[in-house]
């Protein structure tokens, strides 16, 4: 059981001793039972930190934000940044380290084990409550969540509203950490790994396309999925240039060499191009934190695209993103015995 007071104390201590410039954690916000990320730089504010199944965000993203900010700043603050990290979040930190995005000493990982509770899937919750928002949410220690809407309280079976990734999770405790709160729980007795993908691919080609065309058609191309993804830290996104940053050393040739793989317009074809390319670029890098799916305003089940590839990576190449900081990336390595039967 994570004792949130201990977590607060630890964070406060880090700040007091000036070991970190700030602690990125969760606090109660305006989103009802869902916590919101906060950047705490005063020891006193550490008291506002919370930890519960409503702490959905993958805070590794803020390490990326910070690195970009420091890179842009004239007076960068070189002190490390601390983040509260769940099992999946810590794997994200591992991938970022693997890709040299920052150094180990630049980050303090405050590991929290999601233990039995995991986190809830707001989509499932919303589906259950037909869009109504929950003001309070807690894990009842057994297999259910206690939810409060307005004045009414009710218990929903965990399996009904727990995020798929948590149902399928096999590493609920952060392996990479500087401190760990809560009991080490490797797996919960809910779903088998990749259960959701495996179910999705049961459908026929036509059914699968019908589903995905429906989703691609609805995509707003707001790119929230990309903005929230810690792995989408590219200075410019290959499929869309809204992120293109022109720096002093950007040569004319570089500016000219921006390929328009994808048009701004939303629409099945363009959106498919965007999502599929993003998925393949995350192959072996996606840690299944589910953020892309969570932030999608039209609820496209984006996680399926990524977990499909992670499943292939695991089953065919014995590769797991974030398992080992030292391993060389999925797509920059190979084995002679890689599948060959699909090649004519």
């Amino acid at each position, binding site marked *: 059981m994570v004792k949130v007071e201990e977590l607060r104390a630890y964070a406060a201590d880090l700040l007091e001793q000036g070991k970190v410039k700030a602690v990125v954690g969760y606090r109660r916000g305006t989103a*009802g039972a869902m916590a919101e990320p906060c950047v705490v730089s005063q020891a006193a504010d550490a008291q506002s930190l919370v930890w519960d199944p409503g702490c959905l965000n993958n805070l590794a993203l803020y390490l990326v934000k910070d690195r970009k900010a420091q890179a842009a700043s004239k007076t960068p603050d070189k002190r490390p940044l601390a983040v509260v990290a769940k099992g999946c979040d810590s794997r994200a930190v591992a991938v970022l380290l693997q890709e040299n995005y920052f150094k180990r000493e630049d980050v303090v990982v405050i590991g929290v084990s999601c233990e039995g509770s995991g986190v809830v899937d707001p989509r499932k919750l919303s589906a259950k409550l037909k869009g109504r928002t929950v003001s309070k949410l807690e894990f009842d220690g057994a297999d259910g969540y206690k939810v409060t809407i307005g004045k009414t309280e009710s218990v929903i079976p965990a399996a009904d509203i727990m995020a798929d990734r948590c149902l399928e999770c096999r590493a609920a405790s952060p392996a990479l950490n500087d401190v760990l709160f809560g009991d080490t729980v490797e797996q919960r007795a809910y779903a088998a790994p990749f259960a959701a993908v495996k179910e999705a691919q049961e459908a026929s080609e036509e059914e699968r396309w019908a589903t995905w065309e429906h989703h691609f058609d609805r995509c707003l191309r*707001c*790119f929230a999925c990309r*903005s*929230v993804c810690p792995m989408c830290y590219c200075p410019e996104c290959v499929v869309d240039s809204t992120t293109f940053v022109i720096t002093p050393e950007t040569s004319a040739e570089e500016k000219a060499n921006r390929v328009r793989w994808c048009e701004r*317009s939303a629409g099945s074809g363009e959106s498919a191009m965007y999502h599929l390319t993003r998925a393949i670029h995350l192959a072996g890098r996606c840690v299944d934190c589910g953020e892309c799916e969570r932030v999608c*305003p039209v*609820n496209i089940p984006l996680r399926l695209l990524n977990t499909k590839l992670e499943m292939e990576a695991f089953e065919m190449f014995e590769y797991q993103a974030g398992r080992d900081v030292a391993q060389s990336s999925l797509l920059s390595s190979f084995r002679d015995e890689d599948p060959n039967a699909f090649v004519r």
Partner: protein
Amino acid sequence: MEKILRKENLGEWLAALEAYDLHAPAFADSVWNYARVGSNNAIELDHTNTVRSIKEFAFPQREIFFRFEQEKDGKPTLTATVPDPRPTVVFGVRPCDGRGMPRNDKVFTAEFKDPYYWARRDRLTLVGLACNEPHSQNCFCKSVGGAPNSEEGLDVLMTDLGDRFHVKGLTGRGVEIMEHGRDAFDESRKGDKAEVEKTHAAASEVPQRGFGDLSKIPDAIRKNFDAPVWQELAQACIGCGICTFLCPTCHCFDINDEVTCQSPCAGERVRTWDNCQFPDF
């Protein structure tokens, strides 16, 4: 014009509007959004706020301005593509969403009347549904001069009275669609009016998130322009800009030439939603 519509007659009214494209809130993919009404004319009106706003009925995410084509060394030929939509009715518009529309109207009229926007807007009828209770703890319409029963921007306002709706025509277009379905309506009886007012009053009583006195805000912002709170808030923001896509009054757009063929050069000039906060805006 004010009428009573028994809930069981709602379908009859919709059926009378076959000349129109009908849209109403629908719960799909675990969110509420506007969707085309099915042939059975069955619609649900117990919705919370929709995720997407009604702005796209006049200001779609992608608008083709014209198609262009140019033979090598030849003159470009342009084909305008001003939309010619069927008249459209949107049911279940929440008053806050409805209030966004007049603001968009301003934007697309101010310097010149945007033909693409108005081609759609002029044939758009908005049927609002007053909120009997806030749908989110974040509702704040009252703080910005709105109300759970605001009529601004709407053509019709419906109020849920349990077994029946009170339906009030607010504009010519509104009255027109009520006329079409006149047989579905009952005359409002004595006491209905009072009940409507009671319902509205009750809704307004429910406490909301408030910003206090709006008039103080500009000054407050000026005073605290460099306050650390902005920094703290900014740190949490991931800059995805989805707020602007969903906002009923955000209207930034980008204009691009989408080349479909390089030689002979051909393509479309399109307007797409954009975000004034994007780096390349």
